[in-house]
């Protein structure tokens, strides 16, 4: 692969200084960046290894009951923590439905936000891709394929964001803490990723040198703990990206939905929060009609490209199913097959 400088700064300030240079890339778990370097899709001049930065590899419970998760926390560690999983069960389920055990052990939560699309043309440097190389064109347009976006796509790019975790974060109202040359700031997760528009090469709101330092979940999000699910449809039971997925959370008071959250994965270049659907559910009875109507509303603006039309009704259905299962109650234990519509079998009968 292309030669690059490898830096391993000891402090955040040094990391930001090193990461601001043109051609620099931050390296954390490496589960996505290294793959792209192997295909030649990513050719950084400088790798800034942030895995030794102090203090980013842990989470802390905030005084108000919120949770602040350091960017270098490993997906497995977070998902397997009992307090975390009980407080934000859909987030833990989303994490455990992603990738494979080995990858979750290596991958970090900050890196999860920074994942590149798995569009095959993005990963292949010999194909045109506006996201990888601005203005080179979009080889995906016109191809009959199942994976592409049905919401928020543009002529320039129809790629999807691959994350499961981010879908749950979007529903939970997570905030992303960012540090950079101009100091620190907080961005709503739902504002963190950009829709492609005319400039798909810019995938997040991060400015040069900025990096994710933490993800914060507001205390109020814990109010959904009793009615929260993440569901994911995929081509095999594990180690597969979502065709479509949904995070659904409800706060039910006296048999009425006091508050609802609904977000989708696999449908857009960002985790897709469905605010209209949430508003429609507020004050409704938690029944099948309400869920179906709300989920359908979430897909009202959807548009198919060749070969992915089925994803629009399918997303509405999985949204309704996730809401239905959330209403039925968060399972007492993590499902054997996290994110699956199938119950699975106990690992050891």
């Amino acid at each position, binding site marked *: 692969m292309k030669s690059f400088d490898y830096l391993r700064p000891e402090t955040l300030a040094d990391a930001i200084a090193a990461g601001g240079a043109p051609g620099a890339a931050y390296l954390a778990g490496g589960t996505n960046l290294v793959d792209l370097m192997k295909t030649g899709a990513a050719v950084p001049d400088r790798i800034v290894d942030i895995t030794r930065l102090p203090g980013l590899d842990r989470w802390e419970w905030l005084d108000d009951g919120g949770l602040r998760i350091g960017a270098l926390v490993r997906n497995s560690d977070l998902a397997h923590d009992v307090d975390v999983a009980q407080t934000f069960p859909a987030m833990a389920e989303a994490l455990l439905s992603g990738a494979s055990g080995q990858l979750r052990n290596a991958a970090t939560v900050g890196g999860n936000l920074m994942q590149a699309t798995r569009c095959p043309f993005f990963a292949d440097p010999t194909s045109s891709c506006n996201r990888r190389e601005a203005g080179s064109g979009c080889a995906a347009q016109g*191809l009959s394929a199942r994976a592409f976006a049905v919401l928020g796509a543009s002529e320039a790019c129809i790629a999807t964001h691959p994350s499961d975790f981010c879908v749950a974060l979007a529903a939970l109202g997570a905030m992303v803490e960012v540090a950079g040359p101009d100091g620190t700031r907080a961005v709503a997760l739902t504002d963190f990723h950009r829709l492609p528009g005319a400039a798909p090469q810019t995938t997040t709101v991060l400015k040069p040198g900025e990096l994710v330092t933490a993800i914060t979940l507001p205390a109020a999000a814990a109010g959904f703990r009793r009615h929260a699910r993440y569901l994911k449809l*995929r081509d095999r039971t*594990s180690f597969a990206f979502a065709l479509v997925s949904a995070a659904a959370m409800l706060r039910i008071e006296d048999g009425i939905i006091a508050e609802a959250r609904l977000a989708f994965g696999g449908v857009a270049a960002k985790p897709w929060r469905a605010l209209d659907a949430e508003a429609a559910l507020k004050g409704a009875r938690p029944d099948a009609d309400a869920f179906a109507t709300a989920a359908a509303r979430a897909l009202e603006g959807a548009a198919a490209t060749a070969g992915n039309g089925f994803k629009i009704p399918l997303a509405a259905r999985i949204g309704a199913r996730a809401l239905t299962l959330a209403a039925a109650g968060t399972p007492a234990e993590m499902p054997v097959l996290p994110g699956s519509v*199938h119950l699975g*079998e106990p690992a050891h009968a």
Partner: protein
Amino acid sequence: MPDVTPLPAATPIRMGSNAGQPRTRADGLLKVTGRATYAADNHPAGMAQAVLVTAAIARGRVTAMNVEAARAHPGVVEVYTPANRPELALEPDAKPSFFSKLTETLQDDTVRYEGQPIALVVAETLEAATEAARLLAPQYAAETARVGFDLAPYAPESVGFGFPIEMSKGDIAAGLSEAASTTETVVETPPQYHNAMETHAIVAEWKDGKLYLDTPTQAPGMSAAGFAAWLGLDPADVVIRSPFLGGGFGSKAAVVGAFLLAIQAAKLLDRPVKLALARHQMFGHVFHRGATRQTIKLGMDAEGRLTAIDHHTTAVTAAFEEFIEGASGAARTTYAAPAIRASHDGVRNDVGVPGAMRAPGEASGSAALEIAADVAAEAAGLDPLEFRLRNYAETDPMSGLPYSSKALRECYAEGAREFGWAGRPLAPRQMTDDAGMLVGWGVGTATFPCPMFGAEARATLRADGTAVIETALIDMGQGSWTAMAQIAADSLGLDVEQVEIRGGVSDLPDSGVAGGSGYTATLGLAIDNAGGDTIRQLAEIASSDPDSPLHGTGNTRVVARGGRLYAQDDESRSESYADILARAGRETLSGEGKGARGENDANDHSFQSHGAVFAEVKVDPDLGQVRVTRLVGAFAAGRIINPRMVESQLSGGMIWGISFALHEGAEMDPRTGRILNRDFGEYHVSVNSDAPSVKVLTIPEEDAFVNPLGVKGVGEIGVTGTAGAIANAIWHATGKRVTSYPIRLEELLDL
């Protein structure tokens, strides 16, 4: 806790005290501790690293490569392109053996498929070679790629490895026109690419006039001869070391151009060279299972007995070379009918050469035929198992020859009992579980032939009474190190611990081909004969020695057991091997053996392994997500040498069947002929959680005709039957008859 899990079905058949035992893997500890040496683990002194550069278009020409930039990269030793390609002893398009296929050795600037070698970069480090390969930045003049089935078909030379493109018996037209009912089913199977965990790799070193190759091969002798032919060497001067393969599945037998390039680079640079293909380079240059479109017409009488089976396959092959997936062969071997036609034609695409992939022909063919059988059963109003029993082939459906053995009826019965098939509702979409999932049950017939290739082995008794077996044995995961030692021990009358196997190197007696499910039968027979030859000589020594207690017994009236020879009619007369050898003044005593099918055996019998696979699926009624919740496979494959290895082979084959049914398939971009899913993230194979319950039964089957060991073979049959059983279970669950593999959830949605 016993450390051995007995198979549920039956008492294993025992040849002696070793065969039949579920011994653990002889090489297991080496493998789990990382000490088993695979080809790419070798690093001879001075070794350079090679990286293959492969085409990013499917059809056209390479118009430019920036060789200067690549050469200028620090650490680069040499860059080979068509302009300075290493010469071979044969023309690049020569095919030195029956199994050879056209391959690419930089003979010109033509690109005939994506992934074709177009250059080789050699450098001091893998990183330098990789970057220099990138710097080559090939430019292309691309032509429109030919993709898919809807092109003009042509009549191929042959099917698979030399079968006729059409075989038939009886009057098909009459069988269909006079049938009480007919069905027609069209099934498509996708291209599937070889993706063993170990990618193809080679370390080539020229030393002392010989060529040493560390490279995985399923056939060391054949490979050495192949390399020698291309390179103009005496086959004895090519030494291949291949003790372990990280999977072969048919892809690691024929010589490929990339390896020839690495070998020639090692010669020209006068230093060892290593080349290991990258994962994405597995998609093109090293064979694959070609796509098929199969049309199956069945005619039946009023009772559901088949009057005609007309199975036609259109197989995708390369534009420049032929290998036709012999899918219609399933019609010749599975069900009885008075008229059968198994025909093929080909369609040329701009793809790499297809080739053998685990159960070549049968896997694709049974995946289609088993769906067609279910369609017919439905039309006849019969339970799918009853339909299969009514069309049971008592003799070979095409040739009419008697089977050497066939316990398929028992497989159906035992499998159905274990699965709980009785009471299955006839109509689809009748069963649900507590969670509201649709439940369906399906069955598929499994069958695979029992070929034997030639193999040789040498057995040597040593002065201490132990023995060594020498043969170029390879183990690609199936357990041959283990099973062959069991056969050897029995043939020599020793415990398995007293038998050393010396193998993995091509300069030992030729172990033949680990393929076609024939390795245990063929090499096992060679070892058995070598052991028998040794014992015969030992008995002659003892019998003719007046000082031996066995004097005068003659070599046919002794038995070998526990390291001693006993007089058959008087076991008080016996002597240890060590004592016999010592008195004869022999340090060692060697015997030799060959394994092959008897010359006229195939004139008298048809040789097939059989099985029945039962599948349960659950399908979400609204979301289409499928889960294979249970698989039960009952197989009859003659004598079982090692039940543990056999169960592993069969269950692994069945999981491959899950993969065939639901997961595997290259996705081609029809605009470019390029493969979109060239990595393990996107080219899906089944994972553990896709196979929650896979149960294997082995049905006892004695076979006096297939070969003297009575061994048939289990390496491939597990794939057959399984994909169809799953497709049929999905129909039973949903009422939807999906006829295109892999079966995708959107095809099961009511939209």
